[in-house]
């Protein structure tokens, strides 16, 4: 119980201090671009609840989810294919390295040309940025499957789908999850950027609208909301990971002990 209390104190300590500093430093501010935190926090509920939650926050999050899931499926699927065949790997690797090096935001204007400015464009942008860490990590994970485990599977006639499902994917799952974690933060960035280019709803769109209409405290609330969203998603990710990779953390802890 004491340990838990301490853990909670540690977790909220620094954010509390930073918010306190912000509060104190901005409290007397009369600069219109730098409103007091008090004002921002007071504005927050009226801006982001009710109508705007439905019309801007939910569409943003849904597009993020769609792009992310798409990237996850494509990344794991292609990564498994590339990782398990040496020929395919040698053939694809230079191209992959090139494509990965292209910053995804620069694709927004290009993707707009053929996907328009609707949801499809934004989902494609998010997916095209998220797919790389998943893909490359999956390739590495699939490639690194232990040779003794592979021989075990062969000698027990575990092949095809069974081999994929019971050996290759679980064995690569720590790397796949690492890739998914990187992809999540990239996804949030691209969600905002894609909405800043051309959109009629979404969190990114709303923040830009506030800035253009000099609703400065409202703009600041948008930034707080994005931070909060990112934080909540990463907490959710952490719990999902603990569940899926419980074996991996246990295994690592047991090798450290011995």
């Amino acid at each position, binding site marked *: 119980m004491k340990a838990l209390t301490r853990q909670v104190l540690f977790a909220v300590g620094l954010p509390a201090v930073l918010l306190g500093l912000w509060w104190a430093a901005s409290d007397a501010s009369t600069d219109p671009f730098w409103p007091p935190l008090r004002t921002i926090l007071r504005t927050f509920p009226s801006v982001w609840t009710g109508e705007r939650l439905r019309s801007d926050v939910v569409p943003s999050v849904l597009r993020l989810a769609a792009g992310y899931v798409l990237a996850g499926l494509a990344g794991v699927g292609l990564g498994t294919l590339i990782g398990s065949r040496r020929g395919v790997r040698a053939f694809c690797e230079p191209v992959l390295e090139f494509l990965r090096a292209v910053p995804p935001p620069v694709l927004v204007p290009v993707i707009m040309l053929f996907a328009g400015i609707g949801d499809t464009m934004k989902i494609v942008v998010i997916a095209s940025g998220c797919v790389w860490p998943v893909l490359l990590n999956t390739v590495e994970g699939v490639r690194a499957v232990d040779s003794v485990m592979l021989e075990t599977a062969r*000698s027990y006639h575990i092949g095809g789908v069974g081999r994929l499902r019971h050996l290759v994917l679980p064995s690569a799952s720590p790397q796949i999850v690492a890739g998914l974690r990187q992809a999540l933060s990239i996804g949030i960035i691209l969600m905002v950027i894609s909405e800043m280019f051309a959109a009629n709803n979404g969190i990114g769109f709303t923040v830009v609208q506030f800035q253009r209409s000099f609703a400065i405290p409202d703009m600041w609330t948008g930034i707080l909301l994005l931070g909060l969203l990112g934080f909540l998603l990463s907490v959710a990710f952490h719990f999902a990971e603990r569940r899926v990779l419980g074996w991996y953390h246990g295994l690592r802890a047991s090798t450290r002990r011995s």
Partner: protein
Amino acid sequence: MLDIRGLRKTYQGSGRQVEAVRDLTFTVKAGELVCLVGPSGCGKTTLLKCMGGLLSPTSGEVLLDGVPVTGPPPGMAIVFQEYGRSLFPWMRVAENVELPLKEKGTPKAKRRELVTDALRSVGLPDAADAYPWQLSGGMQQRVAIARALAYEPQVLLMDEPFAAVDAQTRADLEDLVRLLWQERGITVLFVTHDIDEAVYLGERVVVLSASPTVVQDELYIDLPDERDQLHTRVSPRFTELRTHVYEQIQAAKRAARADASALSAAPDGDGRPAG
């Protein structure tokens, strides 16, 4: 049952050819427990992989019941030395044991029965829900043995299975292997570099030479069927047999050194100076 005929395996490694196994011919009869013993690095694992259908020999053949082995044969199970890398850490013990049966298409009720029985046979009836990494090394190897047993093989290949466990655990596991062999009538081929282990376990010991490997000697172990760690290992006959095997292995090493210095072209290989 298991016929190895003129088996030869060479590896093509970075510009030079390495002959791991030169010419091996021997037979394992149904229901026999045969130990293969040889100096370290003599190609025991290569040989075992050829027998298990995991490697194809350069020439010669392996016959199981008269049928040439070209891939892993259905009636064969392998217990690897590296239990930690052979069991799947993301599956619980029972799932590990069950997986090959699932892939084989064994019905669910039968699977459950086989898994429970196998775990009981290796002395781990309560470990079904544990993860392998929660168990000690010896227990993990027991799980690997249980997985092999549940598979109901005719032939069980064991590749230095106890090389990585401590001496006391090892003695227990040796007795377990003998017990299971007697109970189940499986043909067991046990590869080891430990001379005492080979003599203690085997009905027959095949002594391999240093690499490139040939059969150096074969001998029948005429110890009583009921063996135990305490009495068997101090019996005069045991000592005679182990001395004999030891001499054969020394002779094999000497021959390899003579061979190497005669060629004087291969400074590595197994020709380390005696010390």
